[in-house]
């Protein structure tokens, strides 16, 4: 059973104060407050006794409100809005009690789901009250008006059962701590950060949230020198261990330059990523585990050396960037039909000495490479980006040497110098 209090031109705080005397969980809708009276049955007694207690509380607070008690929140709200005084409905009689309500009341109650065009249609049909609407067959309504028609009819019959829509206060995901003594070592600092991260992750999970960003501010002993770091996670995380490990790896690479006097840890909440794995899909690395692994490898080889390559839309040789993590979506494609000859690049390109006879390379010498050219193909002229500082212009050759290897070499147009770009392998 639910009780709803409705009052016009009354401060919302006053309504809430009266409702809060009876239940900590109160739904607020416009000029209404609704709460469950089921737990009050044992404390106060029958619905009649509960209604009189609510009236007494309203009288003490000088609250001119209407009260309705019904089996579901929607009926209680509609009745308290329409009928003044106290309205009691025994379960099963909602339809009778709601019958005289004009349809406009229902549309005013839920303007999001019920559009004015729907009201116009119903008025043209001659349906003016809830009684008229409840008399229509549900199947016919669904055929003509869809889901909105079914919802409207059930609202008019008072048969919609739903939980209260409670507004929860947004939790704070920040922890600040002033330390009695400054911390010089990373380990004791991580111990404190671990507790803070654990507490924040607990709050996140309690609210079904996850963190996408982490902000850490460290107040250092040196005046005016504060340390800030921001970690952006490619996938939302709510596991304290993973977050702490990522933070540890970052702090080990970028250590604060002075003892730490205070810290402020903040996690930015987002909706967690929920992906259902398929039975027949191939396994992929767990996103949080992969992120941690990549961070560990980045700590070893450098962040610029780890990632997923993305080819750039240019003809410039060896043009690519690295993005942090591989794509998680399964993208099955056709398997390669042939073995394709690959190149192994020399980064940077090897400076070479090339003997040219009759406009073609005849001998090649570079670091670790020396030989006579048996067969060659080329030259192919390529150039581009002439409008920017990364412009290139070169003549490329494929040369097969007598050592059995096949190289891609090029001569830069500007300097006429030769380089070994790659070896076919």
């Amino acid at each position, binding site marked *: 059973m639910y009780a709803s209090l409705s009052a016009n031109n009354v401060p919302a705080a006053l309504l809430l104060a009266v409702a809060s005397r009876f239940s900590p969980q109160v739904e607020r809708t416009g000029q209404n407050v609704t709460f469950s009276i089921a737990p009050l049955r044992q404390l106060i007694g029958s619905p009649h006794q509960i209604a009189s207690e609510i009236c007494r509380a309203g009288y003490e607070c000088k609250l001119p409100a209407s009260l309705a008690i019904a089996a579901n929140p929607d009926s209680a709200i509609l009745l308290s809005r329409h009928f003044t005084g106290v309205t009691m409905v025994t379960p099963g009689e909602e339809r009778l009690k709601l019958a005289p309500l004009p349809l406009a009341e229902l549309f005013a109650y839920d303007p999001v789901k019920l559009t004015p065009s729907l009201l116009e249609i119903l008025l043209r049909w001659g349906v003016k009250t809830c009684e008229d609407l409840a008399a229509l067959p549900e199947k016919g309504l669904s055929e003509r008006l869809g889901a909105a028609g079914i919802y409207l009819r059930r609202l008019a019959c008072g048969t919609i059962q739903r939980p209260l829509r409670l507004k929860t206060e947004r939790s704070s995901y920040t922890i600040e701590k002033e330390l009695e003594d400054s911390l010089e070592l990373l380990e004791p600092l991580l111990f404190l950060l671990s507790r803070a991260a654990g507490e924040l992750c607990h709050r996140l999970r309690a609210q079904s949230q996850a963190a996408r960003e982490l902000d850490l501010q460290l107040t250092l002993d040196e005046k005016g020198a504060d340390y800030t770091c921001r970690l952006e996670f490619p996938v939302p995380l709510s596991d304290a261990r993973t977050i702490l490990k990522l933070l540890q790896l970052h702090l080990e690479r970028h250590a604060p330059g002075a003892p730490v006097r205070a810290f402020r840890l903040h996690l930015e909440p987002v909706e967690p990523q929920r992906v259902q794995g398929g039975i027949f899909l191939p396994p992929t690395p767990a996103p949080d585990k992969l992120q941690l692994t990549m961070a560990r490898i980045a700590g070893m080889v450098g962040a610029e050396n780890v990632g*997923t390559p993305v080819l750039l839309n240019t003809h410039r040789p060896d043009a690519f960037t690295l993005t942090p993590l591989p794509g998680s979506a399964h993208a099955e494609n056709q398997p390669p039909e042939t073995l*394709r000859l690959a190149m192994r690049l020399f980064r940077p390109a090897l400076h070479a000495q090339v003997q040219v006879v009759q406009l073609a390379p005849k001998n090649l010498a570079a670091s670790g490479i020396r030989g006579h050219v048996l067969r060659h193909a080329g030259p192919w002229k390529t150039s581009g980006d002439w409008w920017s500082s990364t412009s290139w212009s070169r003549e490329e050759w494929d040369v097969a040497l007598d050592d059995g290897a096949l190289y891609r070499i090029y001569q830069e147009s500007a300097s006429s110098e030769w380089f070994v770009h790659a070896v076919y392998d």
Partner: protein
Amino acid sequence: MANTIGGLALDSRWTKASELHVTREESKLATLELHRLKPFFPNGLQRGSLLEITGAKSSGRTSTSLYILAESISRGETCAFIDLNNAFHPASLPKAEVGLNHLCWVRCNGNTEHALRSADLLLHAGGFGVVLLDLCGARPQTLNRIPLSYWFRFQRAIEHTPTILLICAEQPQARSCARYSLAIKNRKFHWKGKEPFAILTALESTAQNNKVSSIRPEPLLIQTGEA
């Protein structure tokens, strides 16, 4: 009949160590079918196994390794490429436009220790289809210093998992830890047209799976463009 060792009679239920037959448990996971390498791997690659591809420069070892990587990616798997000498050419990966999205590339700048530790981390993270450890171009002295226990550790890490560890090098490294060992030799290059208008069309090599004695060297044709 009871066994006897040093005059002591053993119970018939005990077996001598020399008579033990160690059997390797077959993986129950689906194998990785390699259509273009069918002569060398008729039943595909067993999951949780270690494969070595060896060969000299321009033998086609990198092309073959990238083909296996592309086959795995084409099944929707995520793969990893541990690049010791920063030699990977992303555009060389077959079906690169799709495949690169599912590839983790680790560049080790010639540091063998970083390459091995990265491989260890990736194999223990799990979930990868193929992890390619490219040791081509490394100095033999450096590779000879890698303890055999590393390869046993890697083998244990991938056992009973869907991951295949692929090692590409000039000489065999993992030895007995490798379930497959494909040795590739360069035979000749195919050119089209006459100089100065010649174009390279294919590389012809021969390859042999050293772990299966019945398979003789077979030709392996590697083309310059996708068919």
